[in-house]
């Protein structure tokens, strides 16, 4: 188990290095950061001076390793545009994105688990078909368009909710729904499939034969087992949601790191983009690594393979 855990952690670390190396070369090979820093009025000599000062005259791989060395010590450099440390810019905003991400995944679970459970209790009933319809429609609904339509209906026509900013909890309602509904179809289908399988199993029949109450069977025996893969999938979706937060935060003017990455890309602010790519990638890698290790702990056969 220990060897397996070490091996997996090493691979995860290697993945992060490759991901950051790829983004680094992608952005540094094609744009000239010296022009961005110098601005429009800089003379050729200024640009040349900036190039030497920031080390852009060195080969890309050399620049990458010096960036990586500092990044490992928690120093992600300085924003070209705002001239502020990237770490400070991100730490001030990551709370907003995390709040949005956690709220969205909770929203998705709160909708999909009851709906999936009820659908599984009566397969092919009216309510099962209704749940399927919601899943099919939800999967095709473009997130950003759904967000815009909510703004028009609930923000402009009915004036129920604020449409921009992040000062109160009410500002998070529409972004949460817009980001969360997208995970709902997948989670609901998994809950339904898991529940149907569990409800047909021997130990549920035994529980019924013992004369336990249907509620106790459903919640204590069935749901508890069916829900494990759903929670694992939700963890993976949480990683995807960070990516989706770019569009949602931009639309609702929620100034988290999704919004920051959009802003930084508009300004070719490479250090900021670079750091956010690494943060998003780390989230994904850590979430999947923990899921793998948890699986290996629960099922020792995995680590022997």
């Amino acid at each position, binding site marked *: 188990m220990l060897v397996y855990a070490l091996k997996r952690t090493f691979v995860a670390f290697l993945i992060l290095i490759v991901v950051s190396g790829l983004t680094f070369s992608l952005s540094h090979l094609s*744009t000239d950061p010296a022009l961005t820093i110098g601005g429009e009025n800089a003379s050729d000599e200024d640009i040349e001076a900036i190039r030497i000062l920031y080390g852009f005259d060195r080969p890309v791989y050399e620049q990458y390793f010096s960036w990586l060395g500092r990044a490992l010590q928690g120093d992600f450099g300085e924003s070209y545009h705002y001239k502020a440390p990237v770490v400070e810019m991100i730490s001030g905003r990551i709370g907003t994105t995390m709040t949005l991400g956690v709220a969205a995944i909770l929203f998705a679970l709160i909708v999909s688990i009851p709906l999936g459970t009820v659908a599984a209790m009566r397969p092919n009933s009216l309510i099962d078909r209704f749940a399927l319809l919601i899943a099919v429609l939800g999967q095709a609904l*473009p997130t*950003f*368009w759904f967000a*815009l*339509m909510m703004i*028009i209906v609930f923000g*402009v026509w009915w004036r129920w909710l604020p449409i921009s900013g992040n000062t109160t909890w009410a500002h998070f309602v529409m972004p949460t729904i817009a980001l969360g509904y997208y995970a709902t179809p997948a989670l609901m289908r998994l809950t339904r499939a898991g529940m149907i399988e569990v409800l047909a199993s021997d130990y549920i029949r035994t529980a019924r034969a013992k004369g336990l109450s249907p509620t106790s069977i459903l919640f204590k025996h069935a749901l508890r087992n069916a829900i494990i893969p759903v929670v694992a999938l939700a963890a993976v979706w949480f990683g995807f949601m960070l990516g989706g937060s770019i569009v949602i935060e931009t639309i609702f003017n929620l100034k988290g790191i999704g919004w920051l990455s959009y802003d930084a890309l508009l300004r*070719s602010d490479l250090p900021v983009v670079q750091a956010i*790519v690494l943060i998003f990638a780390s989230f994904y890698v850590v979430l999947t690594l923990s899921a793998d290790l948890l699986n290996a702990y629960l099922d020792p056969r995995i680590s022997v393979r």
Partner: protein
Amino acid sequence: MTDASPSSQPSLRIAEEILEPSPMAKLRRRIFKNYSFLIGAFILVLIVSIALLAPVLEASGWIQDPYAQDLSKRLNNPFWHEKKFDADHILGTDKVGRDYLSRLVYGAQISLLIGFSTMIISGFIGTVLGVSAGYFGGRIDMVVNFIINTRLAMPVFLVAMAAVVAFGASLLVVIMVLGLFLWDRFAVVMRSITMQARDLDYVKAARALGCSTPYIIVREIFPNVLSSLTVVATVEMANAILLEAALSFLGFGVQAPTPSWGLMLNEGREYMFFSAWLLALPGGCLFLLVLAINLFGDGLRDVALERER
């Protein structure tokens, strides 16, 4: 012997087999029983034919030039509004007076072109990686697995935006970037199916007969993965269409004046408070197209899975 079931008598079993519908008839019956497949295919055929016939429709006067501006007719309302409606533009005009209906029709071309080209590129990369990992296993499998995991760890949307910034925004760049990113599902699915197919008896037989590896992969393995490949292709096509729309909406995709639905949503955004239809129409088209592809794909999976049983 009290077994009364008629099939137990050999002569009757043969009679049943003769009377049974042919495999093609069975397939037809499954397709026509599958409403999801039928509805999806119907909408999809409709959208694809409108998109392909757009130049013909324009030439025969059904729709107008999607690029022709008329500043005297800016932001005309569509037909369900009484005020500021012009019978020449039944779905209204945009902020520079271009006919909204023809832009929507040509927008279908852009979405389908991006969805289809992306699917071909990513399908090729993913299939090559997945099939070779699944067939050869061992070191190759390990390397491919690492590539897949690295790709999965990359935040697609953010890296796609960065790539568009790096190479300049255009239709070709968007297609290339999405094509080079969206192969992960192809690779994962192809890998696991090839692994199962590798151990089938007739594949082992082909190997024992001394068939070459390329021959086995193309003639024995590939027909096995084909149905799953089609299903993944529909999923990825829908995915690519949604991603392009989101990229263009943020200004990191197809550039003006190309009539892309995502770009139309971007352009309509500043008028959303008074002319909500500017957003409702292109978004609705996007929704309908993705819904049709998903229904078609779901139906295809059911039809294909039932055959395998």
